[in-house]
């Protein structure tokens, strides 16, 4: 394979540089990771409560704080803003510093950002549980919590600009494009939609269009680019190969930037919005095949010949699981935007299956992979237990598989029945129960897997166990990669 020439300083000097960079990242990145895991724990508890309530509506109804209408948005916001965003910010910070090849400066900006952000999340979740949600999906935090998030995030963006100015001159790697894109897209999305929906609400069905412009872009222009940036770093890094094609990277990046922000309208197909808006969003959704296939080929061709590394490296295994899920969830998403399929799947559990395939199987697994790689370097300690990592992986992988399959099958059946006016609505609701039970069960798997990760995380922070010389690998150490 041809490749651009590599910089070749001595390996030792290189390792020392990296050690300095990692040391400088330690506090801010671990702060973001720790808070992410904290909220993942609570977000998952809310998820389990909400899931059980769907099959057992009498469960925990005595207190208004724990009714479905509050627990469900509490789940979404805790995992989106409590877990996913801080995890993404932590990964982005570390990747930026590594790829700028310069130690992190201005750590105080990031620490302030982490505190503000987490304060905002805590206030926001509290407000939702207290009944003060804005009731705009994905933007349930009232404006006094949202402003904290916005300022906290702005700090991160400013920091990234400062960091980039201090980089060691040289090639700007594809992961950095994605990180920069995301760090500017998110505040733009979050600011504009909060202003237009919460502070000075626009009128009528335009509200719905803006709402889903945000709801979809927060996935596609914030979480997705960070996870792709991470995979673009981890896969070639761990394998020690160049990424397959610079040209595919460019194609993938710009096609994503071009098409993603039009996708939101596909949540409103059949709704009271002009049909050209719907059609434009359908086209953009299908055109997402371009960045997705370009990225998938790039990852796959880099992996070819090295799949055996998946047996040993935890970071690689989680990352590749995530990257493969990205391809699957995106192709599924493109198909769901088509009017003929959307007619059946819209307003069913199918959509929920799709969103968990994206947010968990793709994004969350990729973040776990990145954390498995980054954290030992920050704390200078190897993961204490390969068993815990294996348990985490298999519980997460089987949990998400069960969840997606049950919601997908259940959702299609539900959609077909809903399209038949002869079947009474309540019968359809009752018939979704077995699938929802399966979903609660799969949620318990995910939760246990996360507990294994949380335990690993706490143990490694405490530098528990004996000092290991080599990496903590999953299989027999055929290759020494971590």
């Amino acid at each position, binding site marked *: 394979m041809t490749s651009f020439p590599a910089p070749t300083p001595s390996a030792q000097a290189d390792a020392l540089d990296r050690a300095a960079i990692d040391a400088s990242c330690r506090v801010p990145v671990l702060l973001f990771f720790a808070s992410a895991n904290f909220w993942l724990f609570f977000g998952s508890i809310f998820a389990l409560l909400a899931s059980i309530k769907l099959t057992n509506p009498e469960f925990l109804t005595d207190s208004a704080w724990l009714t479905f209408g509050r627990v469900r948005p509490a789940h979404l916001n805790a995992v989106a803003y409590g877990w996913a965003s801080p995890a993404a910010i932590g990964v982005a910070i570390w990747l930026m510093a590594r790829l700028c090849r310069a130690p992190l400066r201005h750590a105080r900006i990031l620490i302030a950002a982490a505190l503000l952000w987490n304060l905002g999340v805590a206030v926001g979740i509290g407000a939702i549980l207290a009944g003060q949600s804005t009731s705009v999906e994905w933007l349930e935090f009232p404006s006094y919590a949202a402003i904290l998030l916005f300022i906290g995030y702005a700090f991160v963006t400013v920091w990234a600009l400062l960091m980039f100015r201090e980089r060691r001159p040289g090639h700007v790697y594809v992961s950095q494009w994605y990180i920069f894109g995301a760090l500017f897209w998110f505040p733009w999305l979050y600011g504009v939609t909060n202003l237009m929906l919460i502070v000075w609400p626009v009128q009528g069905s335009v509200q719905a269009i803006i709402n889903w412009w945000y709801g979809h872009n927060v996935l596609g222009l914030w979480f997705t680019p960070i996870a792709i940036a991470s995979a673009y770093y981890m896969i070639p890094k761990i394998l*020690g190969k160049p990424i397959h094609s610079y040209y595919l990277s460019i194609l993938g990046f710009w096609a994503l930037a071009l098409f993603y922000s039009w996708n939101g309208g596909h949540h409103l197909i059949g709704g009271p919005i002009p049909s050209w808006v719907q059609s434009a969003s359908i086209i953009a959704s299908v055109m997402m095949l371009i960045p997705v296939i370009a990225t998938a080929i790039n990852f796959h061709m880099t992996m070819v010949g090295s799949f055996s590394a998946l047996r040993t490296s935890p970071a690689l295994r989680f990352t590749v699981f995530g990257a493969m899920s990205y391809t699957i969830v995106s192709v599924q998403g493109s198909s769901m935007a088509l009017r003929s399929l959307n007619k059946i799947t819209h307003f069913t559990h199918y959509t929920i299956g799709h969103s968990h395939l994206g947010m968990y199987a793709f994004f969350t697994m990729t973040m776990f992979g990145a954390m498995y790689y980054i954290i030992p370097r920050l704390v200078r300690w190897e993961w204490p237990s390969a068993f815990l990592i294996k348990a985490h992986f298999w519980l997460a992988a089987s949990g998400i598989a069960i969840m997606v399959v049950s919601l997908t099958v259940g959702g299609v059946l539900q959609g077909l029945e809903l399209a038949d006016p002869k079947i009474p609505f309540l019968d359809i609701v009752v018939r979704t129960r077995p699938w929802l039970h399966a979903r609660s069960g799969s949620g318990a798997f995910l939760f246990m897997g996360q507990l294994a990760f949380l335990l690993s995380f706490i143990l490694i922070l405490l530098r528990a166990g004996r000092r290991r010389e080599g990496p903590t690998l999953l299989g027999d150490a055929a290759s020494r990669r971590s």
Partner: protein
Amino acid sequence: MDVAKAHGALLREHTEPRDGAAPVPLWLLTFFLALAFWAGGYLFFYSGGFRGDVFNENQIAWGYTPPSAGKAKDPITLGKRLYVANCASCHQVTGLGQPGVYPPLDGSHFVNGPSSRLVAIVLNGVTGPLKVDNTVFNNNMPAWKGLLKDEQIAQILTYVRQEWSNQSAPISSESVAAQRAKWTTRADPLTEPEILAIPTEELPGAASASASPAAPAAH
């Protein structure tokens, strides 16, 4: 910091990732072009003419259509809006007026009578005693010719003539324009004798109004 103390993970790490230079496969570019072609076709067929008021993607298939084309304005809807804004404060939304003060429009032989007289009343206003449905009112109605356009008066009167129990023919804006031309120099409101002196000839666009059952007294 010396290398020996550096974490083992750092020492066994590969260099930071680099880019390979493999070209984009030709089959992929071809596929992407096919997708773009499909997208153009889809937009062509299901764009609803790029109009803000088309919600059914199958309704209009062929490119852009200006918003006004093909969408006739409904005089009743517009007329009602104008009536509520301009007339209802006196004649009420019910069209029944207020006893002794404002005459009713519902069932009135002026409303359902010859359009020439009706339009003249609204254009110039009325003053002094006026007998509507066997009740004499003695009040003033302001002139509307300075405030409302021909089209708007036509819409209001078309609405008024077809609302409540009224069932008279619509009035076109041309007929209002024709009537307005006759009264341009008139400044004062009309009186009842003047109104009754107006020929009952029908204005263009309201030919069937004279056949209205509510208007025999005017013949």
